[in-house]
């Protein structure tokens, strides 16, 4: 493996990992603080992609479509939390799992009714619809670089909020001991609504910016969900830092595993997860 090949693969791994982080960050927030296993997380990613596809057609502009789609995604999170989850907090985990599993079916069916079964695409938006020459016969889409930049910036923002704001302190405290936070007079119900909406919005946003890079098809969220659970488990449940490093590890492992050990490519991320759990049963950063 020559250096050019290695560096390009490094870039591929980093880009995939950063996108995974964006999707997994919402999952780990909701999982860690609210204790809810949101199985519908992948479906939210799909909804984000379909929203931006639909709105780009209507509005004629990708960036405008994203601006309109984000409030819709937040509203979706808000509605689901207030209307459905809110009634189940006192119940056993199993009820919440059943609810979010039901949401997958509902959202997938809604997708089929609204947008049908065809495969769609969103064109790569200006001014990023260009490519740079990497090697003598390989180009790299500038939009991929842009997506990496956005993911890094959002990771920075999330890190800053968690470390340096009052809200971040409450969230981190909530992840460690929810009852104590409530005892200190924090309104946990509002906090939960906020976390869930933000979590949904982050995932949907990942679907939106990934839309020009992927094909928009029914069931596109189902396979990404499993990968995100692996990321969250490796990083440590509820840890944003863990989700970041977990996503980078999985991104690199998928990329290099595919070309170096092709026979194990489909297993490699699970092998890593098993290895991490053997050494650190609660994840790398829990």
């Amino acid at each position, binding site marked *: 493996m*020559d250096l050019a090949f290695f560096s390009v693969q490094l870039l591929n791994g980093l880009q995939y990992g950063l996108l995974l982080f964006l999707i997994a960050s919402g999952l780990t927030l909701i999982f860690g603080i609210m204790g809810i296993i949101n199985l519908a997380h992948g479906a939210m990613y799909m909804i984000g992609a379909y929203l931006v596809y639909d709105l780009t057609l209507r509005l004629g502009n990708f960036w405008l479509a994203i601006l309109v789609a984000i409030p819709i995604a937040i509203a979706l999170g808000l509605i689901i939390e207030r209307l459905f989850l809110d009634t189940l907090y006192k119940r056993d985990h199993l009820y919440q799992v059943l609810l979010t599993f039901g949401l997958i079916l509902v959202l997938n069916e809604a997708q089929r009714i609204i947008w049908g079964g065809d*495969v769609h695409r969103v064109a790569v938006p200006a001014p990023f619809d260009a490519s740079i020459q990497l090697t003598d016969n*390989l180009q790299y889409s500038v939009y991929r670089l842009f997506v990496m930049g956005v993911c890094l910036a959002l990771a920075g923002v999330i890190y800053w909020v968690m470390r340096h704001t009052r809200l971040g302190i409450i969230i981190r405290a909530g992840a460690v001991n929810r009852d104590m936070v409530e005892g200190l007079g924090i309104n946990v119900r509002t906090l939960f609504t906020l976390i869930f909406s933000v979590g949904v919005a982050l995932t949907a946003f990942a679907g939106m910016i990934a839309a020009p890079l992927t*094909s928009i098809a029914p069931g596109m969220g189902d396979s990404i969900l499993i990968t995100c659970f692996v990321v969250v488990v490796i990083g440590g449940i509820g840890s944003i830092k863990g989700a970041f490093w977990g996503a980078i590890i999985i991104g690199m492992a998928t990329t290099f595993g595919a070309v170096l050990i*092709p026979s194990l490519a*489909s297993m490699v991320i699970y092998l890593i997860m098993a290895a991490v759990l053997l050494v650190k049963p609660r994840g790398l950063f829990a």
Partner: protein
Amino acid sequence: MKTFKKTSLATLLSATAMFSAMNVAANEDPVKLGLMLPYSGTYTALGEAITNGVKLAIEQEGGQLGGRDVEYVELDSEADPSKAPQNMSRLVNGDDVDFVIGPVHSGVAMGMLRVAKQTGAITIIPNAGLGAATNELCMPNVFRTSFSMWQDSYPMGKVAYDQGHRKVVTITWDYAGGKEDLTGFEEAFTAEGGEIIEQILVPFPSTEFQSYLTQIASLEPDAVYTFFAGGGGVSFVRDYAAAGLKESIPLLGSGFLTEGNLTALGDAGEGVMTTLHYAETLENDANQSFVSAYENAYGEIPDTYAVQGYDTGMMLVQALSVLGGDTSNQERLIEVLANVHLASPRGPLSFSDSHHPIQNVYLREIRDGKHEVLRMAYENLEVPDDACQM
């Protein structure tokens, strides 16, 4: 003795009356078609296109088969192999259908074939391309109106060699359908004297192709042959074009790469060459009237899946008109079905001894968002079925 005679005569008479009444009833009963197709999930579009095709063919005959009305029982297969035997049993035993039409997914087909074997239900496969269905696992009551993976990829081997390609990289998903497709291409290409320098298998159903494209660029082959379908096909072709590989390394594939995906592919698809048993631009009378009828009925241009549905419908139309709607003698029914000859939109279509279509395969190139037919890639291609015994 006298009374016995009387009673037995009466019994005989009433039995005859009942029997003929039943016979009349059988002919007045609607023909029940069980459609076991995906109406949700990744393959929804395929399931819907096939259903549209079947219904169009029967509608054109006044909504009847051999003079009998038609009743459809639509069952969502969810493209889930684990539910296949149970779903098929439900159609055959529960709904008591006369014909089962399905599935799309080869894994589901395996489950269905098992039940078809046990129950003897007449099954027409309008898509699933697993070779075994009309080879190792063939049976008298199973027909296929579509293709096998091998049939659509084999002709491309010679095409690629004739175009001057000598070293080729092949890439597909790591699952049975993809591997069967590559087998057909590799068999023909290496027989001509070409070399497969790398066979890449991507975990199913991943659409994260960047690392493989980097690998292809560093291998510098003369061409790439690929099988992906649906959303995966769109992702692969778009990523391939975005990586700038399309200009230096031609992309070849079996037609499923781009079938039904033309709008989603946009410019990325231009120039991609594929082999398939159909193209919407085929210039024959049957195709031209089919395309316009389909467009009138459903407001969109049909793809190969719609044609496969349509031919399934036409097969039933022809067979039941020969039989006058009488489906009671299964042996005779199977014989008539096996002898169906269609002037299909895809060209002449007949069936081999293993009940697989003998059909043309065309070389197509995407130009201005359409599959233009460059030439015939293989005329009346018959699929190897040495392992079939029935």
